[in-house]
């Protein structure tokens, strides 16, 4: 069994970040960005091929959820949060 390649993992990571960024809700956006960063960093040193395969498919499933939910978040929008700049510039964090 061959596990996912380096490129595949990086592509998945990038897509997860992009979809997390798609959330209109401030708190959800920052939570999923934080989660993606820590999750991929923690799994970086995984060696066991079966475990890698498992983590990869779990992350793929989560990406599916993020894709759907970020679209829903864009459909039902609310005002920006008091810590969120209105001009849409990314905050330093």
């Amino acid at each position, binding site marked *: 069994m061959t596990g996912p390649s380096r490129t595949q993992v990086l592509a998945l990571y990038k897509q997860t970040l992009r979809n997390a960024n798609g959330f209109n809700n401030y708190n959800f956006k920052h939570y999923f960005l934080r989660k993606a960063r820590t999750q991929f960093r923690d799994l970086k040193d995984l060696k066991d091929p079966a475990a890698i395969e498992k983590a990869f498919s779990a992350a793929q499933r989560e990406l599916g959820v993020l894709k759907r939910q970020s*679209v829903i978040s864009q459909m039902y929008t609310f005002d920006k949060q008091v810590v969120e700049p209105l001009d849409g510039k990314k905050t330093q964090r």
Partner: protein
Amino acid sequence: MLRSITRSVLSKSQRPALLRPRCYATAKVAFDLPLETHTDLQKAHQDLADARANSSEVVESGTTALKHAYQENTGFGTRPIYLDMQATTPTDPRVLDTMLKFYTGLYGNPHSNTHSYGWETNKEVESARKHIADMINADVKEIIFTSGATESNNTALKGVARFYKKTKKHIITTRTEHKCVLEAARAMKNEGYEVTFLNVSEDGLVDLKELEAAIRSDTCLVSIMAVNNEIGVMQPIKEIGALCKKNKVFFHTDAAQAYGKIPLDVNEMNIDLMSISSHKIYGPKGMGAIYVRRRPRVRLEPIISGGGQERGLRSGTLAPSLVAGFGEAARLMKQEFDADSVHVKRLSEKLTNGLLAIEHTSLNGSPDHRYPGCVNISFAYVEGESLLMALRDIALSSGSACTSASLEPSYVLHALGKDDALAHSSIRFGIGRFTTDEEIDYVIKAITERVEFLRELSPLWEMVKEGIDINSIEWSGH
């Protein structure tokens, strides 16, 4: 003739659609038609701006006060920061994702066992039950779904007491319990039971010796909450469980604020009944559960009679969408337990340190035995409600949501022996999975500024600064 015309119209309108590059309907809807919901603050801002544009002199006097009341016109949004996680939590998008299919296709009644519509929802319900049981190391059959922790608490207190009414007539609980436990206990008092309300120490903790002394031969139930909803104090559940087991009394714990947030194990802690709420763990509202031990069996009389669903303890058709959302929320609590704990603890320390740096502030409840996600702080010489009014950009509460309508000071803080003034000036901060560092920084800054501002207005504060002991003053005119 007519048919040929319609056909040609149809084919014409269809043709360009086929040639167009493929695009997703969802994305199109999302960008064309967002459904915007505005905060009330938006309206308040608008009103203020209008008023200011119309008259300059009238508003001027209030401007300085309002400037301190909330951040204005600085290029930031208007929606308040949510820091009331003990009241309820935002629904996690992953929970919503599992729930949506129950509103689009999976509509079967989970109790219908004659067709596949029933089977498929029943399967989802059972897997949700498994996730909920796993979190507290319980068996699947021991989880009974209810409408929320209030119903669970009522089921436990009234159910157990009524079942054993022939021999046992005594219930023990504490003064700092949630309103629904206190009221249920009071209702049992009217039915002829005796209820002991235990006092708590200054830290909010139950004295185990006092508890042991209160247990009698006819005591049927001890009900003590795991994490307090107002001050976040964690009771020594394991020791209480052991004590109850030794004295052969059933032990019920209200874990609405504790489930998924602190490690709980029903077998290790000898818990016989446990109330759980879904909307405190990022799940849907209107859903809860009660854990009822099977070995040794805890018998209780159901409050709701009906078709005998949920082992006959809680009849009525389940809402599969809510159950599945609850199950997913429980699964996520387990999956994210370590990450969430670290995050909440870090933010809590930051907030506590930041706020206690203001002079004349104090943390309510035990500093060691606590769930870090609930921080209750008293700001002396500031009225809690006026501080909340001044903090329109932060969603906070001075205590439990059920009692915030009345102007009475919190009974929980009273039970800790705090005086009225301090109980009035306390505010509860709830930190959760979705709280960010940025928000905490904002809150610390905002509170520091506004406490200072409100104190400047107060004549009491002037006296304190001059070194006059407030308690030594003899007030005249009363």
